[in-house]
């Protein structure tokens, strides 16, 4: 009865395509439950299938899904690989959906370990695998330590401390029921502290989602009709900033056109086809290609011409944008106003006159809470694994709060609380078995 495991198996945030790999008995069923077609289970082994990943009714991403049935797979288990569009947010979103629907996050080297244990890999490779697990564990430990800012680690520790205090008190009530000088906790009494913990978790998560973008860069695409001023905008942005990287090491060369750091905020400009060679995306490649670009991006700068009326194609694009982070950049504001448009995310500029670029930067900061990141003393989780775990903890805590409303006995609530505590422990790499007992005996005065 092995778990079904999932992990992002490509470098995050840089590639145009990211692959999320799922292995285990239930992998096909779990992924199937997230597809739009719900027909993945009917597909033959070793096929690639076009589909959408859904969160309820919401389309998360347009994807290609490889289905490989046991035993002829890498791990000798059922494997599903989801080829997603690679935006950090989208990829994490899909991983989170998988984790919320029955998958467990894979441990370092776990796919390879399973491959070996299931007889897939040659005996001679066993040493290598043991080394791999050791080094990956070491690596992820180091990474976790490095990535986990001391402050956020303390915040998670504090959350655990808050939870274990509630738990220890409940346990003392259970194990020493005759002691009436210890506060007897009831569902009503713990509700405020649980809500407070949830609030804190939520804050860290919100910060982390934005923080991740700061660290890895915001995948940004600039789209618009020909001659609308995309190139001038790009050049203006590039010109403004000396730290331009055009040749990025590794796999990303042909994908990321440039990294632009605007006062510490990293914009990864992706797929700027149509900007440099002035080929018209909207008109000639069409709406479908635009949709792909939109899906890949964390941020879309949609450039319109102030001097022209809105075309029907542009209206279609506007509708597509509604689900994403977008800014409508109205260029050529030095010319006559002919454009009529109503939207909250409008910035008016003149690339030619170098006007409004600051407003655009402010808008981006506002959109990703970056103002706060810069000015506030603020901490966040920086890797997808930690964020997924914290999201799981938050979801479990929500369930607990619901169960309290349903009047479940407090000792049952405590069992669920223990899971949340364990999940938080996984984030900071701590799960000290005796911690609860230590709490119990150090905080409460008991004895015969």
């Amino acid at each position: 009865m092995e778990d079904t495991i999932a992990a992002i198996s490509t470098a995050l945030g840089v590639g145009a395509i990211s692959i999320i790999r799922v292995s285990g008995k239930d992998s096909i069923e779990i992924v199937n439950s997230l597809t739009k077609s719900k027909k993945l289970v009917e597909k033959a082994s070793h096929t690639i299938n076009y589909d959408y990943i859904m969160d309820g009714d919401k389309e998360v991403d347009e994807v290609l899904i490889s289905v490989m049935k046991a035993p002829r797979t890498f791990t000798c288990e059922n494997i599903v690989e989801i080829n997603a569009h690679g935006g950090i947010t989208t990829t994490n979103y899909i991983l989170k959906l998988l984790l919320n629907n029955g998958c467990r996050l894979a441990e370092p080297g776990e796919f390879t370990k399973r491959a070996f244990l299931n007889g897939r890999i040659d005996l001679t490779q066993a040493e290598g695998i043991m080394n791999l697990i050791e080094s990956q564990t070491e690596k992820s430990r180091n990474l976790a330590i490095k990535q986990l800012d001391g402050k956020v680690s303390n915040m998670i520790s504090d959350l655990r401390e808050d939870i274990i205090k509630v738990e220890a008190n409940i346990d003392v009530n259970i194990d020493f029921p005759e002691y009436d000088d210890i506060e007897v906790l009831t569902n009503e009494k713990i509700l405020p502290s649980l809500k407070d913990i949830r609030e804190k978790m939520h804050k860290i998560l919100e910060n982390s989602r934005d923080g991740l973008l700061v660290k890895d860069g915001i995948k940004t695409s600039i789209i618009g009709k020909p001659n609308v001023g995309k190139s001038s905008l790009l050049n203006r942005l590039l010109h403004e900033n000396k730290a331009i990287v055009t040749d990025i090491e590794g796999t990303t060369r042909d994908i990321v056109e440039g990294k632009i750091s605007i006062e510490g905020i990293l914009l990864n400009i992706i797929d700027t086809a149509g900007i440099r060679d002035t080929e018209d995306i909207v008109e000639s490649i069409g709406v479908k290609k635009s949709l792909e670009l939109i899906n890949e991006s964390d941020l879309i700068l949609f450039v319109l011409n102030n001097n022209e009326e809105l075309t029907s194609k542009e209206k279609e694009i506007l509708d597509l944008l509604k689900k994403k982070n977008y800014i409508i950049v109205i260029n050529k504001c030095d010319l006559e106003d002919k454009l009529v448009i109503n939207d909250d995310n409008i910035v008016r500029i003149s690339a030619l006159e170098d006007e409004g670029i600051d407003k655009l930067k402010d808008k981006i900061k506002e959109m990703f809470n970056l103002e706060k990141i810069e000015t506030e003393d603020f901490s966040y989780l920086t890797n997808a694994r930690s964020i997924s775990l914290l999201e799981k903890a938050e979801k479990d805590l929500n369930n607990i709060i619901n169960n309290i409303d349903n009047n479940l006995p407090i000792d049952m609530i405590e069992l669920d609380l223990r899971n949340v505590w364990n999940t938080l422990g996984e984030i900071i790499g701590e799960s000290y078995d005796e911690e609860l007992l230590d709490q119990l005996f150090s905080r409460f005065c008991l004895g015969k």
Partner: protein
Amino acid sequence: MDYEIIVVGGGHAGCEAALAASRIGHKTLLVTSNVNNIADMPCNPSIGGSAKGIVVREIDALGGQMGKCADEGKIQIKMLNNAKGPAVQALRAQADKVIYPKLMRKELEKEENLTILEGMVEDLIVEDNVVKGIILSDGTRISSKSVILTTGTYLKADIMVGDTRRREGPHGEKPSQHLSDNLRKYGLNIIRLKTGTPQRIDKSTIDYSKTRVEPGDDKMLFFSFDEHKEYDTSKQTPCHLIYTTAETKRIIKENLNKASMYGGLSDVTGVGPRYCPSIEDKIVRFSDKDKHQLFLEPESNIEDDPTYGNTIYVQGFSTSMPHDVQELMVHSLPGLENAKILKYAYAIEYDAIYPTQMNLSLENKVLSNLFTAGQINGTSGYEEAAGQGIIAGINAARKVEGKEPLILKRNEAYIGVLIDDLVNKGIKDPYRLLTSRAEYRLLLRTDNADLRLRKYGYEAGLISEQQMNKLNEKIDLIEKLKEELKNKSITPTKEVNEYLSSIGSTPLQDGIKLYDLLKRPEVKMSDIEYFIDLDYSEEVKEQVDINIKYDGYIKKAEKEALKMLDLDNKKIPDDIDYSLIKNIASEARQKLSEVRPTSIGQALRISGVNPADISILMVYLKKEYYYDKR
């Protein structure tokens, strides 16, 4: 061969071990230093409590004696945590310290296969690390196929009061002087532990008007699943609650350095239990608290008994202060201003075996055919001792018969949790069971101990055909009642909805099966009986109620347990050499070499062994042992 099995010690572990071994049919000898102390309760006069009460039920399910003697020898009984969920409820009885041991001794004397001998065991007969019998202090050698040590606190026991240390047991008897040294000589790691007990007060010198009465439950309650005698719930003996005063605190603070543990003695090495600190510990560690709760517990209703007839046990007041300070302390308590102390409080230090040196069967890893149970394994508590005792008795018998041992899993019994913790985690202080130690506590309830364990008692030969039939009838009725509730629906009539509103439940929109209605937390089985006549026993109705109401949680726990069992089924060969696995972390290597787990699941539960170490271990095992060469 003089005997098949020898049990050393007549405490709670020894009694269950000797009864199990002899009832299974083996010629058994129980050696005790004093036959009058058989099944004695040297500490508190209660049996059961949170988690512990469930252990007593488990012992009964397996065919042990503790629950039956406690039922008959109790003077009060309660269900603890009644207002909480079913998983944490547990029975606690105040047992009569005169009657309980008497009943137990009668049971021992009834067994044809069992001989009781008074004597002090000082050594074992050991050949090539195989135990073949015992040697008494007078040099007598008695041979056997296996030996069960249940020596309690009697290995090099020291009683400590103030600045005095005397080598004696709880009743002033001579302890075993050499047995623990000899065990060390055979290669065992011996540790020193400590515990304590409070004063006993003359019950006629207490002014009860200054106390709060703590009665037993109105409902008749029993530990045992078998036939029991009814009793008059109104005639239970109450306990009384009082609190320490500012004066108590002042006296203790002023005299603190006279307590054995605070400077009175300079050579205290034993580690005391965290969950039962002495009163001076509480005052030091929780100095902000002005008062501490104490329970006055009667030890016996047999008034002419010379030891326990007139005594009240002051639960919560254990101390190692000298006698003169104890007088001041006791007299500072409300209602005890003129109290007469019949026996002073004391601390006791004793030797124990570090428990990672035994197998999950309770057989020693170094000395084969040697089993240990109770305080010698580092536990504390009558129930923990008895739980190990019955397992040691069963497994010593099975060893003699050449059968596989009975190993209860963590998802099957608190006894399983207890032994697994001892073997895999070791101990720092005397081990007490707590509900928080049981990750599957939802499965380990007081109500279902028979459903969980009777089958093992039957297989071991301690549960009769008749007892088994009774259980099977219960199981059938549980299923029948579930079916009945699935087949009967009610519709949203005015009457139905009025009733539901009256019990604070949401009125119906559509028809609903009674089975589904019972899932609502606020709907009780008695409410279901408003809609349907049910002719079932309370036990059956309770099972069905719990199973339906907590179905989701129970299934989740069962799923988790299955995962654990799966890992437990991945065996580690006996001959594995951990020094050959180079990638494993050094702490993990050391712990694995020490505990020598028999399965991957067990390895994972060893403290200091991380999941990555387990992964590496699994790959190593596959490579070295299980690689399919095809």
